[in-house]
């Protein structure tokens, strides 16, 4: 069980089969259906209350599913106690045992499994070396910085070589600089170890950078499961389109007739064909450019003009909507100027105005 060899163990697949969870009358997770590939890094992304943490806790066994099955490898673990699931978890709060030293914290999973002291000592050193903690083994958690505590939690998770890693917003208590650094380390570690990892976050940057695939949840419903690039370039619905991307995708309310989208007397050719009285046109800020009022696909006046550094964000107020345009850093427009916005045709998305579904 306590393999002294830290790296190289094939990952196992994880399956959520129509898992649902309700607390009383509140459905926090509905028909959650995902197949996670061996060794995959899957990120569950969503706002708070989206059910992402509940999904993770059901997989860990800390919460029981109201219906549906959960499988790890070829084993149905739905009714199995957490400790028999062969998983380890990193908590948002790290959950280090404050009365134990770093070494004892890291070795705890082996100690409770009755691994002998000599073997444990070796495993602790190896796990600590993985996260550069060798010199701190005799300290107590209270004597460590936030980043070091985070690493202790990671070492405790990897020492046992579990089938699956679970991480519940592990980076959210760190400051921005350290977070970027730990993100890179985490990604590297997961790639070396090849252990199937499920990672919960509300941070889209973390999701996009870490994941092989991202699952976006909202109100307990899975919105889209795809690679980060696919999610960005080909969002399944309006929610995903607006959730991913910073600043978020612009939307224009109007109507669709054939391949012509019309809003406020201006019309744009879009790459899809349908007839919708209420349609929404989505376009990312980088697919918009500033032009004169006469040439613009959409016309409005400048609301704000923010210099970010390598580009300027211009918010244009149209009669119904606000549109953010990513313009060159040298752009000098003043608030109140009448301007037009031209849209790149390949970057246009059309959504059903009532259901939010993508029109393809």
């Amino acid at each position, binding site marked *: 069980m306590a393999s002294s060899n830290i790296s190289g163990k094939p990952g196992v697949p994880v399956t959520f089969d129509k898992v649902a969870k309700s607390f009383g009358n509140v459905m926090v997770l509905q028909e959650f259906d995902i197949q996670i590939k061996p060794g995959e890094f899957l990120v569950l992304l969503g706002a708070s209350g989206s059910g992402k943490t509940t999904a993770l806790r059901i997989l860990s066994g800390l919460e029981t599913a109201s219906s549906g099955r959960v499988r790890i490898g070829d084993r149905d673990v739905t009714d199995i106690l957490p400790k028999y699931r062969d998983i380890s978890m990193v908590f948002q709060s790290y959950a280090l045992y404050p*009365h134990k030293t770093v070494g004892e914290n890291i070795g705890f999973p082996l100690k409770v499994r009755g691994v002998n002291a000599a073997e444990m000592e070796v495993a602790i050193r190896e796990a600590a070396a993985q996260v550069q903690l060798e010199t701190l083994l005799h300290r107590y958690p209270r004597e460590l910085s936030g980043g070091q505590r985070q690493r202790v939690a990671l070492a405790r998770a990897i020492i046992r070589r579990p089938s699956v890693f679970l991480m519940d917003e592990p980076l959210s208590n760190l400051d921005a600089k350290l977070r970027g650094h730990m993100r890179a380390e985490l990604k590297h570690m997961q790639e070396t170890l090849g252990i199937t990892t499920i990672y919960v976050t509300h941070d889209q940057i973390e999701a996009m950078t870490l994941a092989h695939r991202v699952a976006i949840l909202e109100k307990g419903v899975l919105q889209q499961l795809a690679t980060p690039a696919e999610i960005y370039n080909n969002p399944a619905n309006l929610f995903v389109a607006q959730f991913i991307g910073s600043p978020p995708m612009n939307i224009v309310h109007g109507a669709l007739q054939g391949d012509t989208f019309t809003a406020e007397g201006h019309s744009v050719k879009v790459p899809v064909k349908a007839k919708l009285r209420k349609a929404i046109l989505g376009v990312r800020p980088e697919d918009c450019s500033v032009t004169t009022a006469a040439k613009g696909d959409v016309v409005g006046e400048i609301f704000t003009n923010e210099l970010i550094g390598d580009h300027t964000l211009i918010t244009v107020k149209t009669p119904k909507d606000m549109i953010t345009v990513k313009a060159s850093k040298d752009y000098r427009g003043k608030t109140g100027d009448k301007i037009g916005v031209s849209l790149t045709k390949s970057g246009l998305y059309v959504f059903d105005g009532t259901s939010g579904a993508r029109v393809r």
Partner: protein
Amino acid sequence: MSEASYKFEKANRGLMERLFEPPAVGKMSPVAKIVAYSILVFWSLFVIFPLYWVIITAFKNGQIVNEGPYYIPFVDFQPTLDGWRAQFATDPFCDLQSVGRQFVLYIYNSVAFVLSPVVTIQPMEPQICKVWLAFSNSIVINVFATALCMIIGSMAAYALARIQYKPKFGNIMVFVALSLLTIIASYFIHWMIASAVALALFFLLVRAYGKHFTNRLGNGDILFWIISQRILPPIVVIIPIYMMFQAVGLLDTHLALIIAYAVANLPIVVWLMHDFFAGLPIELEESAQLDGATRFGIFWDIVLPLTRPGFAATTLLVLILNWNEYLLAVFLALAKSQTMPFMVAAKNAGERGILWWEMCAVIVVMIIPVIIMAILLQRFISKGVLLGAVKG
């Protein structure tokens, strides 16, 4: 608040604050320092004086006490050992050799008691040095009663803090009704048969009708029920308790007092420890669960060390409650298992009035173990155990 008092409050706010939230002693002016320390010294004397009085009275005799009050030994009065002689020297069994012999007998009798279900060893009748007997009785009863109470109480409290119980109110009522019926029935048939029948009936009824009961109780209700057992003054139930111990033949044994004390303090332990356990961050336990620890392992290895200050404080509280307990002891300990409070009370029973000097000698003996325990436990009662657990 009336207009006038509001104005008063406002006008005197500064003064009140200065009085009740003074700056650190180091920052005070010399005059303020002298005043502050004088007040503190006065108050310390006020608090310590009763203890001092008990100790010096233990070295007085009847004459000094009656002529008194005298405050300072060697100046006001010549200390005597009369109070102590009454306990030790006049009792023929209180020399060191007898006490040693008694100690051996004590162990012999304990072994005899433990082995009594297996083999019958006739216990030896101890030669009684009264103070020593009462003192050792107190120690033995207290240690075991407190340990038993803390073990059962803290585990119960942990279960109530972390496991959700939902007993059905209907099932409980069925149990109560059947218990009452059993008591009535046992006038006509043997109580064992009555109990067995009632138990069987209970399971049958619960199985058959349990699903129709919808009202459930929660952990809060159970907790309140437990603490409500302590709201009842013990004097109300002392006669039934006496009769129960009489029925099982445990009167005047250590075991009777150990059980009685443990049960009497259980509600306090459950109530206090529940709060300490509920205050722990649950992630620690969830993490340990995922790491593979058993429920008991988590309790022992994670939860108990983290609640050590609360545990130590509760232990000390229970120890002191047991140490001073008199009422239950009066009924349950008739002779051989009398405790220290008896020895104190006995000094008030003679024809010569209250023998203050002898009583104080006993009290001094009685105080010593409590002070030792307090010193031993107080180093655990410190804050900051949870530092570094969940947040930075």
